[in-house]
């Protein structure tokens, strides 16, 4: 659900009121970034300095924090915003790719990437995720079909180089940076039109937003893989791209960082002034599904689209599918769940996948589990998750 700007600010205030300070801090920076106003940036960065100091001392004093937050939110709320019209950023029709070696081919698929949305790209290794991303970025030439980019900041008839200035592709293993990280970010910002003081403010804002303030004077070799990905994201955001393609951005992040990054990406994509279309590939299926409007599941180069309601382009509305980790045997499971419409059991990745017919419901399954007392370590309804496609 897209929030209007005042409600977003209220949401930020509520985070702080409820003691969810770190989330509130990030959303506060998001709100400040939305304004694209240098004086707001300056005030926000001043707040960041104070906040860092406050966090370090950890002396309590929530009242002082709330007071400053309220003042800053009022300041942000005074800036008039012009919401950008969300529209399609990319439309791919019937694109397919077969490598010359013949080892792999990506079957024809259609894809639309609208502004303000995240599209997840999942699938096992070697099933074409990176190939699809490289096709969309123009690094590979499709054998069939065509890709149409519709970018606000690029004039019609512009060269493909100009188009690519507004696309951002972050590979799984980003190339190393040289020199100070801050210099690299400012260099990027200058090329994208941020000059002088505005450059410094904009760069500092993004650095703060990505939680990189302590590392800005570091060099590439001094930071961990997770922070490298964050810096890469920071550099990308500085460019204000219209379409962001991320190849396994969560691979080097810890569990908490994965969730934070995904939530942040969702928020960034839904920016009211700079809506962004994001497509990201990942192995973190459930995390990606949580933030994605659409998930593309790739299996041996064939794509299945799945919307948030679980409907796909290839099959009927989903029936009940349960992922279950238990020490019970297959036979025990069959005997317990047969009356509730169990059709098939598959063992995959250390867990059982239970497929039910139209008689199956989550309530009846949970009731059976309770009645029989089966030892359950893990239970998940994956009826509307692309997890159900990962079949052994």
């Amino acid at each position, binding site marked *: 659900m897209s929030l209007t700007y005042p409600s977003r600010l209220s949401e930020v205030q509520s985070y702080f009121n409820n003691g969810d300070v770190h989330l509130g801090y990030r959303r506060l920076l998001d709100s400040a970034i939305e304004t694209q106003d240098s004086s707001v940036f300056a005030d926000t960065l001043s707040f960041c300095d104070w906040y860092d100091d406050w966090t370090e001392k950890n002396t309590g004093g929530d009242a002082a924090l709330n007071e400053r937050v309220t003042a800053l939110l009022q300041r942000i709320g005074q800036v008039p915003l012009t919401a950008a019209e969300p529209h399609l950023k990319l439309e791919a029709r019937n694109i397919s790719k077969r*490598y*010359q070696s013949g080892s792999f081919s990506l079957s024809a698929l259609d894809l639309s990437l609208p502004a303000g949305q995240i599209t997840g790209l999942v699938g096992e290794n070697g099933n074409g995720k990176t190939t699809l991303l*490289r096709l969309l970025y*123009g*690094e*590979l*030439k499709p054998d069939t079909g065509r890709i149409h980019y519709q970018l606000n900041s690029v004039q019609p008839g512009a*060269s*493909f*180089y*100009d188009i*690519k*200035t507004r*696309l951002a592709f972050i590979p799984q293993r980003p190339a190393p940076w*040289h*020199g100070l990280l801050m*210099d*690299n970010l*400012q*260099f*990027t*910002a*200058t*090329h*994208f*039109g*941020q*000059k*002088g*003081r505005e*450059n*410094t403010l904009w760069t500092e804002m993004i650095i703060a937003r990505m939680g990189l303030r302590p590392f800005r004077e570091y060099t590439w070799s001094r930071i961990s893989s997770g922070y490298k990905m964050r810096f890469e994201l920071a550099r990308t955001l500085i*460019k204000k791209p219209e379409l962001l393609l991320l190849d396994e951005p969560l691979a080097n992040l810890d569990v908490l960082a994965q969730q934070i990054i995904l939530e942040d990406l969702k928020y960034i994509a839904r920016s009211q002034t700079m809506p962004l279309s994001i497509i990201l590939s990942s192995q973190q299926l459930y995390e990606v599904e949580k933030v994605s409007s659409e998930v593309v599941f790739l299996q041996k180069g064939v794509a299945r689209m799945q919307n948030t309601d679980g409907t796909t382009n290839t099959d009927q509305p989903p029936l009940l599918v349960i992922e279950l980790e238990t020490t019970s045997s297959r036979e025990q499971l069959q005997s317990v769940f047969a009356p509730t419409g169990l059709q098939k059991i598959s063992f995959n990745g250390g867990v059982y996948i239970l497929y039910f017919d139209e008689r199956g419901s989550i309530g009846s399954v949970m009731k059976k589990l309770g009645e029989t007392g089966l030892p359950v370590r893990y239970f998940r309804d994956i009826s509307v998750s692309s997890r159900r496609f990962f079949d052994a």
Partner: protein
Amino acid sequence: MFTKLNQYLLTHHPLLWNTRIIQFLIVNLLFHLLFFFAGYVSVNAADLQSYYRITSVGDGGLFFFSILLSIVVVITWLVFFLRNNAFKQFYILSRFHLIKEFLLITLLLFSSITYYESYFNGVMTQAKRITDQATLVREANILNLAKAFIPQNKGEYFIGNACNDRTNTDYVQYQADVDYTDSININQTDSNTVRIRRALAKPDAFSYRHYCQTTVNLEGMPGFDTSQQIREKVKRLLDGRQKDSIKAILEEALAISKKYSVNQYINTDELAGLPFLNPGNTISKLYDDYERGGSTNNASPYYFSSYPVRGALTFLQSCYDPAQTERWAFLLAELYTVLGIGIILLCYRRFSKKVFLISLIGGIVWFLFFCLVGVTSQGIATPGYLFIFLFFLFTLMAVVLTRGNKGKTMAGLMQCWHIVMAPALLMVIAGLIAWHKSNAYSLEQLISTEEWCRIHPVYCWIDNNIVLISWVNLGLSFLYVLFIFNAMTKAWQVMADE
């Protein structure tokens, strides 16, 4: 200050920041000043006699030190410059970004490999301070006039050698150490010998009046006396029996020699009187042109060494000569070096590392191949035509592959190889034409050069204007890289991999 400057450039002029051009130009300026100073202090009046021309100043050690310094500076610069590449990152670039980048690269390279030029400039500045142009001309005129009254070679005073005017029917090639009456060794029927013997029979065969020489030749410099004018001045002094004036001129010549630390030992009183000893102002005594040091009892203690003074003045002349052919040749070589290094650097900046490495290794293989073809074939025709064929093949393939968006690696290779070959193309064509000319000329050697040029005007023009062609080629190569190659690389950059 550097930090502030750096920050300003980073947030306002990313290209200047990335190329580190300001910082390195300042460093290079300091090195140039150091080399200029080294050149300035390395020259004094006493040294000028040993130089003769500007490029003979200095020693090999300093030259190699300047090359070493250039390498260190360029490598250090590359460490900074190669850190960021906005082009490969698909950053927004201004319309002339790529052109400006190449110009900055060449500017930096040029300033980094021309330290020795500043050394020359330091030498020239000091030389000009020692002797300004008006003084130089005056000293040359005095020396040339004084030399007329210091006879050292009878041939210079011979009636038949007057003014070395080859249009003069009386002109003869007289050599003082040859006995023209020797019928055994000398062909007495030779027209030159006949004329010399006829002239030798005259009573004034060797007279001061026939002297028509310029020991120091500053032809083209305003105020310089030609040999004819020297002859007129000598005649006036003789006609007026101006013994004191001659003595004054000789003493001035001694002062000039002393200024350049050239030792002379002459008796000015005696020399001023010698022209008037005999009727017809004939030569009565010759002076040595070097110090014999009294090695034999009969040796004269007097001598006048004109060669070192002439060396000093000729060197000074080269400092004032705007043409300075040698230095222009140096500059041309330096600019071609800059262009070559710039192109290699550009290939690294514009293409992927894979393309660059393959093209580099392939380029070395091509070079060895051409050497092999050159060694095994006679003349330059085979490697020359092969070069032209390959250049056009690479260019055609680069255009076709890039426009067709097919074979990105191959397209990059073709682009790299064609641009490396491009600056040599015109010179190879000119070389082939010159080679054909020399072959044809050897077959038609019976005709004069003028006649040959009338028959083959194009060949002749190329042969006579190879330096001009080199400059034009250099300019065209720069323009090609700036406006054509840069556009090609931009098209390559957005090509799909497969």
